């Protein structure tokens, strides 16, 4: 890999610009493709295929007319927005970070969202709807509400449900979740939209402690990301969710 190619990839990654490296496997020639630019010599159809793959984050070998190229997609990290700087969040933040997520925590309550409780994460103390609008969740973003408080969770859900967020989950018992759905339905969200919410959040692994609940939510988020049916979902529930 040429140093200039390497530097361009690192610059794009730092600026959170999706970029694909395309390597001609016959001779190692490199080209760089973004949504707007092409740096290097590539057939038009390979550029088009690369952009499709970049959008879907699908690296792989492309073959055309006897040529072979490796398309290597570099997208910004997946992101998880957590509403509520609660005890579970303190364990979820480092777990999600290790799993490769960029993490943002929203909580307007000053006693919760402190730097001491959250030393290594972006904290936003705006009201959740305002904060969520600014963060603009996209298809590579997950949204998890953990406050149990409709005043804080619902405004965040309003924005999340209008976004392409790939995973939306809410902590709370089945009863809490049922009343949440009632409120949102009354506010105009249809059943298809509300079905996007995973509630109670997490897989049923008998999670009790904050770390175990965080683990169950991260596991469910992973299953949804990879489009496999979340296992352990309907048979029973986490101990904490039953409360």
């Amino acid at each position, binding site marked *: 890999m040429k140093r200039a190619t390497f530097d361009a990839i690192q610059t794009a990654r730092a600026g959170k610009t999706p970029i694909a490296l395309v390597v001609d496997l016959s001779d190692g020639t490199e080209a760089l493709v973004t949504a707007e630019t092409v740096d290097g010599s590539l057939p038009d159809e390979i550029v088009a295929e690369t952009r499709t793959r970049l959008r879907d984050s699908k690296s792989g070998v492309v073959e055309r007319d006897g040529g072979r190229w490796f398309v290597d997609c570099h997208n910004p990290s997946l992101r998880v927005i957590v509403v509520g700087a609660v005890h579970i969040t303190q364990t979820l933040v480092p777990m999600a970070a290790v799993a*490769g997520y960029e993490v943002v925590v929203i909580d307007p309550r000053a006693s919760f969202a402190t730097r001491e409780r959250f030393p290594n*994460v972006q904290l936003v103390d705006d009201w959740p709807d305002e904060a969520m609008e600014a963060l603009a969740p996209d298809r590579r973003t997950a949204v998890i509400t953990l406050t149990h408080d409709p005043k804080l969770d619902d405004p965040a859900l309003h924005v999340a449900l209008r976004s392409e967020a790939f995973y939306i989950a809410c902590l709370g018992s089945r009863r809490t979740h049922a009343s949440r759905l009632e409120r949102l339905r009354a506010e105009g969200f249809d059943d298809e939209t509300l079905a996007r919410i995973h509630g109670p959040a997490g897989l049923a692994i008998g999670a009790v402690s904050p770390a175990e609940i965080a683990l169950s939510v991260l596991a469910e988020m992973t299953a949804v990301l990879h489009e496999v049916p979340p296992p352990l979902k309907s048979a029973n529930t986490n101990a904490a969710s039953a409360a």
Partner: protein
Amino acid sequence: MTENTAFASVDDILGTAGTWLDEGRKVAVATVIKTWGSSPRPVGSRLVVDADGAMVGSVSGGCIEGAVIREAFEVMETGAPRMLEFGVSNEEAWDVGLACGGNVQVWVERLEA
């Protein structure tokens, strides 16, 4: 913005490659470009190696890294990229085969200073 660096450093494999290069070390990058069957690491996974055999990242569950590193040493010297292929049918299956029964193609290249 975020300050997840304390957690993210392990996985910034390309970043590590750049750091090593800036320190004057010879660096090769191995990338999984194609898989068949139950290969342990997906397309795009990387292993970065220096001339002393220091490594970060992975291209398998540890099954073929040894063989990839040996090839990487030569690629570091010659600068000519190589395509490697591993699978259970490989003649060297005894020591570098994939126990999972998958096949994997790995592109090895030198990171140019």
